[in-house]
């Protein structure tokens, strides 16, 4: 249910209706539902923003702090923020 809540809030929000919340209540308290819902919303917002920044890992595989240019050479064309 929690994973469905996350997925549907992002891609199928109309399906997160009163009946869905009734089903959530069978497993979670209202406090937990609000915690989950706010957390999911927060991540929906921030992962979209971070993805647009196209940043690469700060460290090389052997643990060195590297520049974004070197990191892109190491990790290739897929920025970690889009993973």
């Amino acid at each position, binding site marked *: 249910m929690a994973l469905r809540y996350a997925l549907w809030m992002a891609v199928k929000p*109309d399906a997160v*209706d*009163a009946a*869905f919340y009734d089903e959530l209540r069978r497993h979670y308290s209202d406090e937990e539902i609000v915690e989950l819902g706010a*957390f999911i*919303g*927060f991540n929906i917002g921030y992962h*979209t*923003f971070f993805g*647009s920044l196209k940043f690469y890992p700060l460290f090389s595989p052997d643990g060195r702090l590297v520049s974004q240019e070197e990191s892109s050479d190491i990790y290739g064309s897929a920025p970690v923020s889009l993973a």
Partner: protein
Amino acid sequence: MDAAKPPITPITPTTPITPVEPDAADAELASLIARAARAGVPGPLFSGILARSPVHARALLRAMLISHTEGSVDHRLKEMVRIRLARIAGDSYFAALRSSVALGQGLDEATIAAALGDFENDPRFTPAQRVALRYADRMYRSPSEVDDALYAELKKHYSEAQIMELGAFMALHYGMQAFMRTMSQ
């Protein structure tokens, strides 16, 4: 200045989660809820729902208020961005709210309506305002179009700190709008 009142959508609080009454919250949270109500955004209903999880409510309400009303990006612009994002998120609650601070600074409904429409071709908006609205629009409608060219355009008008202020503001408020949309169905 347009003296027309904003189109207030009556909010019937039949949300799946019953909001906490302010007098049932601890002092710090009650103060934040009151501040949110005075500011107009995020408003008492969302604040009360969030207050069901006090730990998260304190952090998120504070962050929403700071990101909205503080910083160096013009607050009226952020308010227009916020409302446009609420429309994109399909959230009628946040779309109907109005920042009392922005209204006090002269933002009116005619300008808000223009920001929700074809802002790219509306002469009332400066290039800086248009690119900020474009940033918001693309971020949550077509994120693949938030590309290097858009960031280069943003940098013509805003410092990197201001771009981060805008981006982080958009991320937080859009996320809460996505959550609140499910509460309003």
